[in-house]
Structures are given as C-alpha cells and as structure tokens.
C-alpha cells in the first residue's frame, strides 16, 4: 500500500531497534464504543528510549491504515496512542537520520513522517494522544497530529528541540503547534527553549500553554485519559465545551501576533547564536510561511528543509556532540581508573576563603553533604568566607531550591578555621589560594603535616604545574589537579589533572567526587593551562594580536561571529577579568613561547584599572572609549575579518594538534567535550575539531583532519 515506497529507506536501516505499534481494543467506559489503543513500545526497559526510525514509522503508518479500515467498517469509535512507561516516544532516531547520506533518503524520511502522522487526522474517528512521558521532536509531533491530547503531570521531557539539534520540526510540528498554542508560545517551544540549553517542558507546563487538552496525575493517568476520551467520543457537553473554550483561549491571536512572534524569534536567535547555524532561522522561515500556507503546502516546505538540513555539517556535528559526547563520553570519562578503587570522602577541607574557594565550599557541602571546613590566614577572611556560603544557602532557600531542613543541614556542614589543624580528619583537601607556586607548595606542606597519609591534596590551579606542586611532599602520589570553571555552580566541566605520580586510588576518588558533585570530568595530563584555558588563551592571543597590530576593535572582536561562540573574545576577557586573563596568558607564553601573544596594551589597561575594552555609553551602545585607545600603542597593519577568522582557525588547529601530540587528553573527543562543557562552545561546531576539519584548518595546518 502507500508505505511500500519507503521500503528502500527502511532497508538502509536493517538494525533499527523498532518501536512497535501494539494495538489493543479497549471498551470505553459508559458504552462509548471501542477505542483502539496503540502502545509505542520497543520491548526494552526504561533505559532504552523508544525512537522513530523508518521501520518504526512504516509499522506505525500501516497500523493506522489498518485502523482506518476498521473505522470505515464501524468497528472502532476512536484511536489513541500512548507509550511504554516514561515515554510517549522519545523522538527521531538521530543516529539513523545522521546515517542517511543521500539527500533523497533524507527527503524520504521526511515524507514518511508526514505520510504516517497525517493519517491521524483522517481516520474517520477521533484520534487521541495520551502523553505519558518523554515526547521530543517527532515524538511530540505524533501527539500534535492527533485530534486530542492528554498529558501526565509526571511526564518530563516534552518539546520540539529540532532547532537545537540542527533540524526543523518538519513532521508537521511547525505548522500544527502555533495553531494549538498560538504563535508566541509556539516560538517559545520551537526556538527559545531549544536555544536555552535545550530546555524542555513538563506535563503541567505543556498543559499550561495548550499543548494538551487535559491533565491527569500519573497514578491513574491512562485510566483517566481513557475515561476522558470516552466523554469526548460520547460528546459529553461539559467535556467538549471545556476543550473548545480552552483551545479558543490559546488561539485568539491575530496576524500581527504571528508576525511579532516571528520577529521576536529572529531577535532571540541573533542574540543567542549570532545566526551561526542554519536550523533556527529555517524553523522561523517555515513558521512565517506557515501562517498562510495550507498544511500540504507547509508539508512540502518542511520536507525540503529537513532534507537539506540533514546534509548540513552543523546537524552532523550536533548529533556527534550530543550523542557521542554529552550523552556518552561525558558519562564515562576516558582514562578514568576503575571506580571501585575510589575511597570514601567523609570530610573536605578547602584552603582559602576567597570567592573561588567559597564557591567550592558551597558545592562540596551541597552535593557531598559532608562537613566542609575552610581555612584562611585570619579570622576576618574566614568569617567572610563562611558568611558568603551562608548567604548563598539563604538565596537558594529563598528560590525554593533548598528546603529549610536542607538549608539548615548545609549551613551546619560548613565551618571555618584559621588553623589547618581543622583538616586533621579530612579525606580530601583542595586549595584555591593565590596562583603562585611558592604559596601553593607551602600550603600543601602545611596541610600534609596535619592530615592522614591517604588524604588527597587537590589543587584548583588553572595554570601551574601540578607535578611541581607535589614534588617536595612526603606523599606526592596523593596530589591531583581539580580544575573547576567559574562560576562553579553553573559550569559543568571539571578538568581532573593527573600528575606523573598521582596514584590510581586518588584519581578514582577524584572521578567519583566529580560524579557526586554532578560535574563532567575529563582526564587531562599535567600540561600548562590544561585544555580549556590553553585553547581560549590561543584564541585570545590571536585576537589581541590583530588588535595590537592595528585592526579596529569592532573587526577584531567580531571576526569569530561565524563560529557562533557564546561571547566575543574581548567581552569574555572582561568577564574573566583582564588581570586573570593576562596571568594565564603569561604562563602560557612562558611555557610555549610566542604562540601565545601577551598583549602589552592589555597590561596598560590593567595598570590603568580599566576592566574591559568595551564600555556602554549613555545611548546604550558599546564603544571603546577614546581615553582607553589613547593609553595603547597599536600598529598600522589591520587584518580583515576573513583573515582573522582563518588565522584563528589555523591557530586553534595548531594548538589542538599539539595537545593531542603531547597526549594532554586521550582523543579529539575530549577536546570537544571540554570546550562544550567548559567554554560553552556550540554543539553545531561539534565542540571544535569537527569545525576545524570542515573549514579545512586541520588540513592546512596538520595535513590531516582530526577525526
């Protein structure tokens, strides 16, 4: 029948884990007739989400065709779709979609979704989706294609994340969603949420914006959904009127609202991504066109967009970053020793009471729930550090992120002392004192004099040698680098630094701690500035260098816009703090020489107490003040944007190549993971190495690609 033309496509995916369409006839309560209930189920437990590949969609489509026939014979009064526990259906099988090399196959995949989903609107009986759990992308689009939807308050992970993945909600979602929830909410779901760390909706939120017509609790979600469906099928006036009234409320929009939503979406994309990746704007193109198109016309445009986007490097890089890195490698760090070697950590010491140290205290106390003691050289600093932590706990309490009991517990776990004797029974002591080798070595020597021989000594250094720090200790094997990123609570990366003498139990404990702290750990060798700061340093060097050579700030700072980085280099430097940036740059220069440009002009700004190049004037425009420019001596050989971008790409390829040659990390995947987690670099770059490969930088510099 109509799905035969997709058999070739299905044949390309012989190993698809098929999500079956299991049909059961249910006698609706109240004599409302027979409802054919489809359960989408891959036969695996909840750790294996149900996904949509060609074989799955063909089975689903053919099942609906069969039900359409039964409907025409008057055998059924309704059709409903639900899923195995925790999932309606998670979404398209991204690995499969990524594997479709030919555009015609991508096109076929796009058409297959429409062919199957569109049946839900032409069964001859009402169709329902009972959204019991995760419904993302193509999963949610099934529900949107049904006539009615219920959702569970226990459902999590609802959304249309295609713009984040590098696609469009092109199985009808982009057309149907605004017609259910109104254009503003649709743009929120299709653009704002995906581009905000891929935020998703829960069941209550989905109901709240009108994605679903009814909301039920998980304890008897399916029973209540069926009872509700029975009332709809029977035409129960109260139920039907409630649905109509709700829908009317959500869809009371004008053409102008639609245009405004599109404009807001475009502004959001520009602000968040600089339009560096094609998918988000493509979503809005379809959304805007969809205002006046028929569903069939929109479907054609959706299929074209999907087929094209499936071929883009941004989509492929995102799938790599998402599936290979974030979902897999981040959870199983390469090179981590056997977790069984890890020792328990029942008390933590933090040396220092500055801002970084205080953030660490808060993190350890909240996540490990063990006593955390901080020390500093005088009582005033100690008190300030403890007070900071208490104030942060109160903020969390105020935001209801912590209960009163948990807040009491966390505060009680935190104490301060001016004596390192307080570390005597600690299992893990981390220092976050001034970045100077002499100071750090002295701190470690003092701590070692107090603690047990097994107590781990960790350093949060960002640029000093962990090996050197351990040299003079009685037990150098207990030293490990534990490099967090600022702000500690928000940045997911933790670089765990193995020095040559660090033993496996210490390293295993460090990885176990990282997991408890809910950080993604990457194992790095003891090399100057480790991974993220070294890569950022090389980038900063290139941009400050062209600026010093005479390129204007506007051109220099915006040259990397095509990469879609979260922040321009000068703005990021200002955020980090010019003195900190300069310090890292100097240590990199000391280690590696002129590859890392140290800007004399930047030092002049620091000396003058200037916090950053860009200053917002009264009109709100950011400029570099004349007074700042007057401080600096710059050359007269400006570079073009294109030259700067290419130079930076080459510099990054060079530096990353060296890092891999030196064995700083195990593989390019770790570099990519580090820049995604530690610097927020976008998934559509695949971190960075897929981008350097496709732009030719790796070939130009190394004569070969990274991957």
């Amino acid at each position, binding site marked *: 029948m109509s799905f035969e033309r997709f058999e070739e496509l299905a044949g390309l995916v012989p190993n698809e884990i098929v999500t079956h369409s299991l049909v*059961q006839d249910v006698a609706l309560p109240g004599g409302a007739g027979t409802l054919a209930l489809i359960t989408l*189920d891959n036969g695996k437990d909840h750790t294996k989400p149900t996904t949509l590949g060609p074989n799955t969609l063909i089975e689903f489509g053919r099942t609906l065709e069969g039900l359409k026939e039964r409907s025409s014979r008057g055998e059924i009064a309704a059709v409903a779709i639900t899923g195995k526990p925790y999932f309606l259906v998670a979404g398209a099988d991204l690995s499969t979609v990524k594997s479709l090399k030919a555009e015609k196959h991508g096109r076929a995949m796009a058409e297959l979704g429409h062919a199957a989903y569109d049946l839900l609107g032409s069964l001859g009986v009402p169709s329902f989706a009972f959204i019991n759990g995760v419904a993302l992308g193509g999963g949610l689009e099934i529900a949107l294609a049904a006539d009615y939807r219920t959702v569970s308050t226990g459902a999590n992970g609802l959304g249309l994340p295609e713009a984040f993945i590098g696609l469009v909600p092109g199985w009808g979602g982009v057309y149907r969603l605004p017609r259910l929830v109104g254009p503003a909410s649709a743009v929120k779901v299709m653009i704002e949420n995906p581009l905000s760390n891929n935020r998703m909706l829960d069941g209550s939120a989905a109901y709240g914006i009108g994605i679903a017509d009814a909301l039920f609790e998980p304890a008897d979600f399916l029973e209540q959904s069926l009872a509700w469906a029975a009332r709809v099928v029977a035409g129960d006036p109260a139920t039907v009127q409630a649905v109509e009234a709700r829908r009317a409320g959500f869809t009371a929009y004008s053409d102008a609202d639609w245009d405004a939503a599109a404009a807001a979406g475009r502004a959001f994309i520009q602000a968040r991504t600089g339009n560096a990746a094609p998918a988000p704007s493509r979503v809005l193109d379809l959304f805007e066109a969809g205002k006046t198109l028929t569903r069939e016309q929109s479907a054609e445009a959706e299929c074209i967009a999907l087929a094209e986007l499936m071929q883009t490097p941004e989509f492929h890089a995102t799938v790599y970053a998402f599936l290979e890195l974030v979902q897999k490698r981040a959870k199983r760090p390469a090179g981590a020793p056997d977790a069984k070697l890890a020792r328990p950590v029942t008390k933590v010491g933090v040396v220092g009471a500055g801002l970084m140290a205080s953030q660490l205290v808060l993190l350890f106390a909240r996540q490990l729930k063990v006593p955390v003691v901080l020390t500093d050289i005088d009582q005033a600093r100690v008190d300030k550090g403890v007070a900071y932590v208490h104030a942060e706990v109160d903020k969390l309490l105020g935001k209801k992120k912590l209960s009163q009991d948990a807040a009491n517990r966390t505060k009680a776990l935190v104490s301060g002392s001016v004596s390192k004797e307080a570390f005597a029974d600690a299992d893990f002591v981390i220092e976050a004192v001034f970045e100077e080798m002499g100071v750090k070595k002295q701190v470690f020597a003092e701590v070692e004099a107090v603690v047990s021989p097994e107590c781990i000594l960790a350093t949060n250094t960002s640029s000093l040698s962990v090996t050197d720090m351990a040299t003079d200790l009685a037990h150098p094997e207990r030293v490990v680098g534990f490099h967090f990123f600022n702000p500690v609570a928000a940045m997911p990366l933790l670089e765990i630094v193995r020095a040559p003498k660090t033993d496996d139990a210490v390293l295993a404990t460090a990885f176990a701690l990282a997991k408890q702290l809910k950080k993604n750990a990457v194992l790095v060798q003891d090399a100057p500035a480790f991974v993220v700061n070294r890569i950022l340093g090389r980038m900063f060097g290139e941009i400050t260098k062209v600026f010093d050579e005479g390129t204007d700030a506007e051109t220099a700072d915006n040259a990397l816009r095509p990469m879609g980085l979260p922040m321009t280099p000068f703005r990021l430097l200002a955020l980090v703090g010019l003195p900190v940036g300069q310090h890292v740059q100097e240590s990199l220069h000391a280690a590696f020489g002129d590859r890392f440009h140290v800007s004399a002009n930047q030092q002049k700004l620091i000396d003058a107490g200037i916090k950053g190049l860009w200053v917002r004037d009264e009109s709100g425009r950011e400029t570099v003040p004349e007074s700042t420019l007057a401080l600096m001596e710059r050359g007269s050989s400006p570079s073009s944007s294109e030259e700067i971008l290419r130079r930076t790409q080459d510099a990054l390829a060079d530096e990353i190549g060296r890092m891999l040659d030196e064995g700083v990390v195990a593989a390019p995947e770790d570099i990519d993971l580090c820049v995604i987690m530690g610097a927020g670099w976008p998934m559509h770059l695949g971190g960075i190495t897929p981008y350097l490969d496709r732009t030719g930088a790796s070939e130009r510099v190394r004569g070969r690609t990274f991957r």
Partner: protein
Amino acid sequence: MSQPAATTPARAAARSVRDVVFVDGVRTPFGKAGDKGIYAGMRADDLVVKCIRDLLRRNPSLPPERIDDVAIAATTQTGDQGLTIGRTAALLAGLPRTVPGFAIDRMCAGALTAVTTTASGIAFGAYDVAIAGGVEHMGNHPMGEGADPNPRFLSERLVDPAALNMGNTAENLHDRFPAITKDRTDAYAVRSQAKLAAAYAENRIQPDLVPVAGRKPGEGWTLHSVDEPPRPGTTVEDLAQLRTPFRPHGRVTAGNAAGLNDGATAALLASADSAAELGLPVRMLLVAYAFAGVEPEVMGIGPVPATEKALRQAGLGIEDIGLFEINEAFAVQVLSFLDHFGIADDDPRVNRYGGAIAVGHPLASSGVRLMTQLARQFEEDPSVRYGMTTMCIGLGMGATVIWENPHHADYGQDAA
C-alpha cells in the same frame, strides 16, 4: 478531626458511641492469579491506590485532609503488600501527608476487619472519616507464602496440619455435614455463576468497578474493566467433570470453590454526623459486628457462631435479615451456614449478584466487595431493612457484620 476542644478531662467525659455509616465502596475488577492473569506483572499496592483515588473522585465533597486513617488489609504483608501498605498506599494515592495509614491482617476477612476496626475508631470518636480496604495479589503472593507454622501445632496436636490447607477444611466440612452433597455444592456453584452473569447483564456490578490499565510484554496497554474469573454458562455437567484435588473421589473442586485471584477493594466510612456535615451519601448504617473462632479443621463453619453473636448484639433474629452477602470460599461452607439457619440453597436473599465462586476471592480484599454489593442491593430494594455480610476465615474463624438499609421506611427508628 474537627472535634471541639475538650472542656473536661477526656476520661471523665461521658462518651457516647457514634453511628458509623458506609459511604461508598469500590473495587478493581478481579483477575486470575498467575502468569496469564490480567494483573500478572502488576503491583498490589498500585491496585489499592487506584481504588482509593476512585473513592475520592466519586465523593468530591470530601476534602482529602479530612480522612483520619487508611486501613488496608493484606494476608501476606511482604514485597508489594508490605511496608505498612495502608500508609504507603495513602502516600502513593496522593493523599495529604497528614493522613496516616496502617496495615491489617485477618486472612480472608482482612478488609472486613479493616472496616470494623476503623468503624470502631469512628464510633469511639477517634476518627470522623476513614478509608478501609484490602488487597491480595495471589499471583505475586501464593497462599501461605513465607509462612513458618510453629512446630507445636503438630507436636502438641493443636491443629491438624491439614487444616492449613483450605481445601482440606472444605472436605472436612462435607464429612461433618453428610447432607451437603457434591451435587448440592455444584448446583450452588452453577447458580452463583448464573447470578453474577445476570447482575453483569443488568449493570449492577460495573458501577463499583475501578478500571485498571495494564500492560504485558509485547502486547501494549489495555484496560481491565470487568472481572476475569467468571465462567458464565457453567453447567452442573461441566462441574461434574472436574477433579477433586484435595482428596481422591472428594467433593471440593475448582468449580465449587473460589479461585486464586488478584484484586483490591476500598471503602469510605464516616460517622453519621460527619457524613451529614460533608454531604456524603449514607449507603448503609453499621448495626453490629462479631468475630468468632471455630475448630481450624472446619474453618468454613465460622460464619455460624459469628452470626449468632452479631445477631445477639443487635437484638435481631436471622429472620430479620433480608439480604445476605456471604463470601463463597467454598460452596460447602455457604451451604453449612444456610442449613444451620434453615435457609434454602437457592433463597433469593442470599448472594443476589452471585459470589466468590464466580467473581473470585482475592483473600484480604473480599470483605469490602460484600459490603459494596450489599449497599447497592439496599438501594435496589428499600423493602429490606437489615442485611448481613459474613465470611469464613482461615485457622478457624468467622466474621459477620450487620447493616441497616437507609432507604427503608423505618430507617433511623430503633429496632422493635
């Protein structure tokens, strides 16, 4: 509780016993225990939760925080029937955390005892409103699972070990009452099946069933909205073919006994005052209840002394009882009761909707099923003033509860 603050020391206060009413009762459809049963792979506590939630939906005028206790019975209190199931079920059902709960066990009369226990609390003034119910997932918990009978039962001949097997006790009852023949029990069983089928056809069972969604590997979700055990159309000829598993050439078969089943029940009880205050319906008024012990070897006779005791307390005679809901663990046990009180095998007052032989008997849940059905029969038949729920209990006990019909013309006036 919404009691006014006591103005005198409680022990000195003149305490009056309060009337207790049965507000509502529901149950899951009953399933056959075992891998092929509708509830295979499901949890017992989930079945209870669905009943509790349905009770609340059916009685929207009851603020959940007004529930003072949740008593849930189970015979085997481990695994999904363990962990103080009344409390866990309350939490899982989404009742406020201020609502407590407990577990209760009197084997087959678990739910019945949950009702009488909470009813006593209401009468005493400790509760205004309570939920009482029971569950048995005999697929998850085969009868006697984990039991460790004291060896003294054997060594001191306290109880014949054979009496721990209920089928044996039913055969023993045949021995004691030779007039109860296999032909009579089979004929009784056939009528039970027929009466249940008729009750289903007249939609008398369905209104109090809570549909339960279930899912089996490879089959997808479905909705269980009717009982699985019934075999409508069963004939005496069919039953004559069945083997007698407890004795060669015995009389007790799978056809004239209740099966092994999964299911849950729950009922809502309140003081008469609270029911009025909260706008809750009064379906039955509790008149009296009694438990009695008998020889464990003939546990099926237990309802007889329990009933005599309850009638005595109520000041009623057996002739005052217009409707009987007697649990059909075994047909022989029902007939021994009927013979004792001189009631005909096919008396229309007895088990109008059929009984456990047809619908099933998930041990600790059954008591509330009897009450829910009696409440519906009261509505249908205002001419009846008093009704009785009674059941036999393993290890030699009987339980009887007498109820008054609020639809009767003389309701509220003292019995003559």
